[in-house]
């Protein structure tokens, strides 16, 4: 009993994890192995090998990886610029405040903002067509397809990177740079041997967060894309709400299981990588 006492304080967290993580995961895993009459079946998992499902997973991963890469690089550079600016200066305050808002500016509002700006009758689209003679949709209406999603997702990925990566940059001590300089190190040598290795784990961690953020994003895509369900969350919607193909709730659970597996694989790879990169810090 005495040993259990310190654990008691963890109870709310444990209950939270069980209710919102463990139970839903179990529902998904078990549900994907049962058919409509609750008899065990592997048909749902087999349906995952259908070419349209595999394409959706490929596109989801491509979308998440590319927007995570763009977000990590652009957001990382922006965060670096901010971290070197004056701590109480205008640049820093403006960028961090804007990032805090924009990182949460997803969903239908974001989709609408893009439709109003560069949609078919958007402000920029119409201006470019009437005054510059440029039709940005000459090659097809890409805004409502995968390229559009990449552009729109970048809009919340970059600010999120600034928010999560800035604390790591702030952790770099000016003295380390001075030490490197006084020992004759160049800027390249400082980043290659000191700054880079120190930042790498948290950079990769932030990029992983961006990947997961894009991989699970639903509302923005749902508001923009209405044809063909190019990514997995939209396929889950299709399986749950279709009034043409009925009774596919089990397929939706199998698709969700597939998403869990993808995230688990990425997390494992990240853990292995981080163990390697942070070994010398211990």
């Amino acid at each position, binding site marked *: 009993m005495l040993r259990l*006492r310190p654990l008691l304080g963890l109870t709310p967290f444990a209950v939270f994890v069980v209710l919102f993580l463990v139970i839903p995961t179990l529902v998904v895993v078990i549900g994907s192995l049962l058919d409509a009459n609750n008899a065990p079946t592997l048909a749902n998992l087999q349906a995952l090998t259908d070419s349209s499902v595999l394409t959706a997973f490929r596109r989801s991963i491509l979308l998440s990886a590319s927007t995570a890469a763009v977000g990590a690089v652009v957001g990382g550079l922006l965060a670096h610029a901010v971290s070197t600016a004056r701590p109480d200066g205008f640049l820093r305050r403006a960028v961090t405040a804007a990032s805090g808002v924009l990182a949460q500016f997803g969903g239908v509002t974001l989709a609408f903002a893009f439709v109003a700006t560069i949609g*078919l009758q958007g402000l920029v689209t119409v201006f470019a067509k009437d005054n510059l003679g440029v039709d940005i949709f000459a090659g*097809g209406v890409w805004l409502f397809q995968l390229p559009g999603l990449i552009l729109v997702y970048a809009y919340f990925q970059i600010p999120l990177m600034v928010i999560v990566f800035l604390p790591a940059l702030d952790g770099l001590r000016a003295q380390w740079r001075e030490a490197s300089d006084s020992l004759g190190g160049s800027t390249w040598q400082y980043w290659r041997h000191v700054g880079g290795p120190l930042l790498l784990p948290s950079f990769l961690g932030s990029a992983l967060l961006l990947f997961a953020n894009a991989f699970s994003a639903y509302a923005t895509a749902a508001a923009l894309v*209405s*044809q*063909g369900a190019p990514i997995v969350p939209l396929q889950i919607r299709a399986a749950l709400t279709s009034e*043409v193909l009925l009774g596919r709730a089990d397929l939706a659970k199998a698709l969700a299981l597939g998403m869990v597996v993808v995230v688990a694989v990425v997390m494992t790879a990240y853990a292995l990588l981080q163990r390697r990169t942070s070994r010398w810090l211990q």
Partner: protein
Amino acid sequence: MARTTVRVLSLIAAAAVAATVTACSPPASDSAAASTPAGSATSVADLGGMDALVTAAKAEGKLNVIALPPDWTNYAEVISTFESTYGITVSSAQPDASSADEITAAKQLAGQDTAPDVFDLSQSVTVANTDMFAPYKVATIGDVPDGLKDPNGKWTNDYGGYMSIGYDSATVPAPTTVADLMKPEYKGKVALNGDPTQAGAAFNGVMMASLASGGSADDVSPGVDFFSKLNKAGNFLPLDPTPATIESGQTPVVIDWDYLNAAESTKTGGLASWKVVVPKGAVVGGYYAQAINAQAPHPAAARLWQEFLYSDVGQNLWLKGGARPVRADAMITSGTIDKGLLAKLPAVSGTPVFLTPAQTDAAAATLNSTWAKAIA
């Protein structure tokens, strides 16, 4: 002391969570539907006539409906007329949900006061869920042709129409056939109302394209090929058309039910230059059905709603929305139909095709495996 406080707090938190979980589960008692006389009534006679039904419904005072968009077949006016006639409040949930969502909501809310009382469903969802419905035959059911209703009264078709092409005559030339849409004048302009693997209207749109491209009710693939070519030509617009996209000019050509397309030019704020054509040689018809939730929390109001929808008033309201009411033939004979509204319906040439459930299933399976690739 501090530690004790933490422990007490965590216990309270755990208890609160447990209480919430218990509260979330539905009550164990039987639903309202089975315990009242209205819940088992299969016709207005079972309740002692129309006046008794109205009294019982007024006593309930409420009707829950779901997935009824106000701009769909004049539903806004249907609901407001019902409310003002009987003094019953209609609470409309999730107007943009699909037919499948209605069934899901009814299952999830079963036994609760907010569960939907009535359903308005596409044909395939209706046939797949008959065990959810309470049998009820409206007074005017004799006017509904056999084949458009369940012999046991579990569901009855209510309104329907034909697949059509709506277009903004101010921006694009008038199409007369489906093949016209391949012309360069329609580049980036042709939208389909929904994804055909999800929405019934879009599904029938692909079927229309199939009939126009040498396919039949048994073979939807020529329709998929048509949209694939339309997409390669850059004419297909992968955007879900809504009244807003139509009015702002984002979707100048929309393939949809004729009653939904027709409503665009007549309603306030609609597009005056919007025209509707049912293409030659590719007439696909479809009906939507009404049914009562067997677990309806307001069983009398649900039955009164049915009587209202199939009355002359209700049927003429569909007509006003551009849909073809299911009792139209009988009402033409008896002279109760609004002839002015009837004359406004788009002209149709050729025999309409109505899909059987087997044909619907076959086409749905084909679309499931081919659609995403066709428009990728």
